[in-house]
């Protein structure tokens, strides 16, 4: 406050008004390089930092919007709703956690599946919503994934899944664990029938999701710099009691160790996957 402002009676002071002129969230700090970035510019750039290339996490619906053609999108199994078979309660009830997550994300559960087109090519695409209870896989996520796969099987069109998940959902305990077996089983059918499945792992893809559907792509893809693994880095650090190597469990580490086929930056995703699928799916295209 300047000396002149201080002289003004408080009624005509306009304290803080300058701040209010800038709406909340107009500027974002890049978690990668710390640069202060204009929010609209980030959005135009698919939430990838134009300075350092850091890939920010994005929601499931936005992910599918960026990936699929604008026309003829159709959501699959949107009506499915989680139940609470164990009447699970920790510090909060599972039911309440679900309601809170639904309110915060405006989604019913942590996976969204859509039928649509990629540059005119028919396919089914799924995406995890990490903000919904850490993208955790419970009964609804498993069932939606399978429904999407069944449509891909029936129509003989490719299936692409973007993972972002902490793993199985603890609140459904063994029901969640068995979703790993369920989703892997439907991928066995797809593999037997020669219907392509591409798994795109985004930040983060861990635990039960990584150890089931996410690692079972005919082609495994990752976004740059995504954390991908079975056990979380903190658990590993506590177990082995040594410092983890630089870049451990990042996409580049996985590529080097042979776990994934390619790292594809977000802005090239449509182009590259369209190319891969065009080649894998040539038989379907001929028939």
């Amino acid at each position, binding site marked *: 406050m300047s000396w002149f402002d201080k002289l003004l009676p408080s009624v005509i002071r306009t304290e803080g008004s300058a701040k209010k002129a800038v709406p909340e969230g107009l500027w974002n700090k890049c978690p990668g390089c710390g640069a202060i970035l204009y929010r609209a510019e980030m959005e135009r750039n698919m939430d990838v930092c134009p300075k350092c290339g850091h890939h920010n996490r994005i929601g499931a619906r936005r992910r599918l919007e960026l990936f699929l053609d604008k026309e003829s999108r159709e959501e699959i199994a949107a*009506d*499915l*709703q*989680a*139940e609470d*078979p*164990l009447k*699970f*309660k*920790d*510090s909060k009830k599972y039911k309440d956690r679900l309601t809170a997550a639904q309110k915060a994300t405006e989604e019913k559960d942590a996976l969204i599946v859509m039928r649509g087109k990629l540059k005119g090519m028919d396919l089914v695409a799924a995406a995890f919503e990490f903000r919904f209870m850490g993208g955790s896989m*419970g*009964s*609804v996520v*498993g*069932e939606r994934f399978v429904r999407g796969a069944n449509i891909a099987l029936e129509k003989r069109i490719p299936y692409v899944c973007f993972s972002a998940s902490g793993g*199985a959902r*603890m609140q*459904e*305990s*063994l*029901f969640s*664990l*068995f*979703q*790993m*077996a*369920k989703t*892997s*089983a439907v*991928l*066995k*059918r797809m*593999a*037997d029938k020669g219907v392509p499945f591409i798994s795109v792992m985004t930040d983060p893809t861990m*635990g*039960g999701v*990584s*150890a*089931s*559907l*996410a*690692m*079972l792509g005919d082609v495994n893809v990752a976004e740059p710099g995504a954390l*991908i*693994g*079975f*056990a*979380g880095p903190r*658990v*590993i650090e506590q*177990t*082995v009691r*040594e410092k*983890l*190597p630089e870049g*451990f469990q990042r996409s580049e580490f996985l590529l080097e*160790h*042979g*776990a994934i086929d390619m790292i594809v930056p977000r802005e090239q995703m449509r182009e590259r996957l369209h190319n891969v699928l065009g080649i894998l799916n040539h038989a379907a295209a001929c028939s």
Partner: protein
Amino acid sequence: MDLNFLEFEQPIAELEAKIGELRLLGDDAEINIQEEIERLEEKSRKLTESLFSALNPWQTSQLARHPLRPYTLDYIERIVDDFEGLHGDRAFADDQSIVSGIGRIDGRVVMIIGHQKGRDTKEKLKRNFGMPRPEGYRKALRMMETAERFKLPVLTFIDTPGAYPGIDAEERGQSEAIARNLREMAGLRTPIVATVIGEGGSGGALAIGVADKLMMLQYATYSVISPEGCASILWKSAEKAPQAAEAMAITSDKLKELGLIDGIVPEPLGGAHRDPDAMAANLKQSLIKSLDQLQGKSQDELLESRYQRLMSYGVFSEA
């Protein structure tokens, strides 16, 4: 405190100690102590019965991880004839936390795969506390493929805290190894019977657990995460493990009720470790029954019902 008894069993331990002392007095005692011993033994049995008829999930999870609990090799020794151990994933190593081999059970040829924990410190380290690395799961898969080729039913014994969370395990693709087993077991063209004999720890257990028949020993547990792990995430304190054990429905009776397992193999009074021979006999009976039920099915029938069962997992509503 006798380490063979868990905390909640201390009243039994005290009685048993008393019985032991009386026995030491032996024949040269002036009074006839035989009667007294019998009376105490009866009392101990009654007490054990009453304690074990009302176990809570946390007590069960301690029994499932009891240091004297029989492990896979203890059962193989008692159940399987002509056993030949088979080793290695043919790519990297022979993971000692999973054992496998072929043999006969009452004349029926089988492939056996199971987690293996260690009894003393040296063996615990060798077995990595029953926590497999990717090469363990890949070895298991190789055995399953061999079984498929030679039409041997696969019996798996589940007993692990979980897949090993280590740097090397991640480097060699822990996630992929587990995922691949899940996918391949769904389509394996031979019957699979899985039995949780102790601790069914998450994905590391499921990776040899996709089956046509899923059984649990009475005091075994099966869950998505250990009670301690769940407690430290959701309650922010590992000390809340008893509550987590309760909330997650990890015991055989609960899981049977929920339709997630097919049957329970009864344990001798006081748990499997009190009488490993009796336990092995019960397990053998259960395995033979499952095998005979599955042998009647054609391969296509078997695979279709395995698939439909996998697809049926989950509880949700559809508005």
